[in-house]
């Protein structure tokens, strides 16, 4: 019997080990900066030449600001559409990622509890069209198909000024420009810096001369962090006077008329746009030599380790919780059985993605209404939220597997145990459960492999795991094919050992208890 107990306590030890390894301690005061590095050139992205290195003009500004404040910069990646939600749930303290201040109405900002710093950069919307397109200015786009990014308000406002145009939303610039190239779109609207970097890679496109709208990039903070806001404004002023900002923009090829006017200086650049040149050259050379694939491997390995940890913890939790639910569903009082059955149906009826978003972004909203320990618990780390979401979702499925397992044990087994004077609990623990484990092992392994794949959804809540890494690299290097093969290989390698292990256990456990056929 202690075999069961060993397994049980082993589970708990495993979970606590992996979870505790997750807890990090902060030594120096950090400035937590939220941004989306996926397809993020030139704002923030991973250097195509050295994928372990962050780069980008906003990255340089953020570093300069943190240095000015005497803090350490910590980059907190998040999905573009989720950036504001992440700030609200205190995932990071500043949000600096092409946040356009002047599209936000004051009332709305106040309602959402956010505030803005002074602008640190001024730019405009850039329309990009095919080289041979008849479109000469933005007003020619009437009645055309226009591609923009999701959650890009300024561009949507610009389109609204046209009398009629069909809008198509994209996750990232690369897909939009690819569709422009394929003639699925007539025009792509993005912020000028992105057009400069992404459209330039495509050969058959042309940037319209006309600047559309005025975009004021500023840093977003939570409204209650007034001290931080003042510090940020001071930092921006300082960097502006020192010329740091100007030199950054010039190196990245982003120095423009609008910003020059805002800074009250001359428009002619003083230095060459070395970073832009470098970027374009790197993209060209890295993908053509295949160097980037080798360099990406450590990232995929790291991401695979995260995927594995999340899946493993989630599965252990799901197996334990599912077991409990399965027992209650099968052997408890009638009304508890009904309750559990309803719960299982609700969980199974909820898409995993909704559950993850709800736990990560939804729950912290009720923090103010909860008593002390709970209000902290609901604001959990992405790792914990991911594990919990996956575990809850899968526990419902595991519960049903266990139930089927329990019901497959002949009734005579429990009768014999009861006739021997065992209590109901003893009969379950010593006779039914050990026999069930053998029955449910194959379907549970099957579920585990499915869970490894479903864990890709935790990329929605800021975790950079395998599939997120795939998106990052493929978007950055315009190559969904080769990185696709790499990521598939990694998923395969993750799942395979567990399939083998379960085969082995199955064989070992059932060898003598079943008649050979």
């Amino acid at each position: 019997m202690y075999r069961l107990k060993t397994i049980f306590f082993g589970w708990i030890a495993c979970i606590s080990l992996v979870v505790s390894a997750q807890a990090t301690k902060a030594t120096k005061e950090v400035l937590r900066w939220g941004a989306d590095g996926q397809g993020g050139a030139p704002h923030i992205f991973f250097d195509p030449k050295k994928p372990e290195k962050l780069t980008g003009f906003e990255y340089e500004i953020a570093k300069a600001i943190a240095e000015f404040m005497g803090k350490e910069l910590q980059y907190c990646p998040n999905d573009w559409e989720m950036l504001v939600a992440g700030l609200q749930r205190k995932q990071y303290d500043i949000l600096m990622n092409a946040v356009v201040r002047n599209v936000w109405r004051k009332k709305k900002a106040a309602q959402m509890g956010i505030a803005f710093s002074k602008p640190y950069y001024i730019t405009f919307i850039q329309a990009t069209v095919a080289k041979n397109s008849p479109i000469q200015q933005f007003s020619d786009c009437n009645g055309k198909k226009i591609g923009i990014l999701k959650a890009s308000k300024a561009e949507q406002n610009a389109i609204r000024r046209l009398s009629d145009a069909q809008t198509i939303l994209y996750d990232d610039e690369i897909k939009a420009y690819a569709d422009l190239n394929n003639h699925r779109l007539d025009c792509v609207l993005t912020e000028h810096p992105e057009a400069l970097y992404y459209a330039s890679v495509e050969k058959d496109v042309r940037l319209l001369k006309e600047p559309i709208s005025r975009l004021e990039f500023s840093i977003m903070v939570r409204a209650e962090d007034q001290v931080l806001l003042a510090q940020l404004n001071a930092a921006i002023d300082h960097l502006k006077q020192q010329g740091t900002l100007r030199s950054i923009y010039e190196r990245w090829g982003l120095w423009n008329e609008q910003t020059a006017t805002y800074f009250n200086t001359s428009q002619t650049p003083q230095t060459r746009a070395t970073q832009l040149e470098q970027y374009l050259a790197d993209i060209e050379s890295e993908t053509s030599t295949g160097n980037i694939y080798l360099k990406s491997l450590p990232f995929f390995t790291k991401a695979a380790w995260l995927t594995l940890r999340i899946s493993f913890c989630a599965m252990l939790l799901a197996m334990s919780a599912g077991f409990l639910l399965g027992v209650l569903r099968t052997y408890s009082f009638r009304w508890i059985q009904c309750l559990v059955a309803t719960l299982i149906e609700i969980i199974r009826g909820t898409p995993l993605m909704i559950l993850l978003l709800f736990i990560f972004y939804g729950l912290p909203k009720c923090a103010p209404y909860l008593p002390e320990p709970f209000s902290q618990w609901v604001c959990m780390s992405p790792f914990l939220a991911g594990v919990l979401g996956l575990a809850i979702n899968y526990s419902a499925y595991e519960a049903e597997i266990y139930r089927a397992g329990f019901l497959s044990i002949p009734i005579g087994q429990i009768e014999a145990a009861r006739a021997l004077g065992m209590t109901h609990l003893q009969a379950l623990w010593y006779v039914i459960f050990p026999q069930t484990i053998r029955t449910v092992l194959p379907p549970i392994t099957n579920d585990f492999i499915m869970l490894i794949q479903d864990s890709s959804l935790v990329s929605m809540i800021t975790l950079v795991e395998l599939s997120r890494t795939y998106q990052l690299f493929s978007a950055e290097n315009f190559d969904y094919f080769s990185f696709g093969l790499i990521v598939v290989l990694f998923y395969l390698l993750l799942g395979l050992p567990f399939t083998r292990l379960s085969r082995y256990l199955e064989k070992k456990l059932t060898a003598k208890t079943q008649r050979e056929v």
Partner: protein
Amino acid sequence: MEANASHQAAGLGLSAAQPLIQVQNLVKYYHQELVLDNISVTIEEGDLVSIIGPSGCGKSTFLRCLNGMAIFDIGCIQINNITLSRKTLDSPIDRDFHKKTHALRQQVGMVFQSFNLFFHRTLLQNVMLAPRIVQKKSREEAEDIAIRFLDKVGLRLFAHRYPAQLSGGQQQRGAIARALALSPKVMLYDEPTSAIDPTRVDEVLEVMRDLDHEGMTQIIVTHEMRFAKDASDYIIYMEQGKFIEISDEDEIFISPKDERTRKFLKKFM
């Protein structure tokens, strides 16, 4: 008729001051169908009683009532000074009742038609389990007991086999050893040989005969007429939830008193 039958049974066990098993006016319904119809019987220590009768007549239910696997609706069962009683149909099944049932089960060993050995344990572990967790005996003690009883049923050499590796007769003998390991006062058998290869039936019956010689009280529901005739102290013929006839083993086969008994036995003879 019933009164007559119980009178006879009482008359057969003459000596003891307090009979080991006393059943009075047992009634059980199953979904409003009367399964046990006012049954009374007294069984003395050391008796071997066979219950015969057509299927569905309530034999198994009666047996299951004796060890609390089935709960009767009205009546009283007394085994070795533990009394389970329910006065009316709506008498509550309370904690006390469950406690007594639990105590009763330790006095009563039960052997099933389908053996029901625990598939995931070896024969030895099967026999050891109940002494270990029900009687809280130490591992060594339980193992000693298990080996002793496996020896008794002739399975000592098979102690480390799993049930799936044993024949039906061996499994049933193992099940008997498992029930004996709790040192019960009474052994109940619910058609113990029905699921066994005919050539293997005798090895099981032999074990029961040995137990009878050692003075074990045994109640057997069986279709094994020859065994019932040879080994039983007396035989009960049951039909439609009633004990129709209780009599000496030869008497019932040679000159059954009741017409229904005669008809039933005719099919077997």
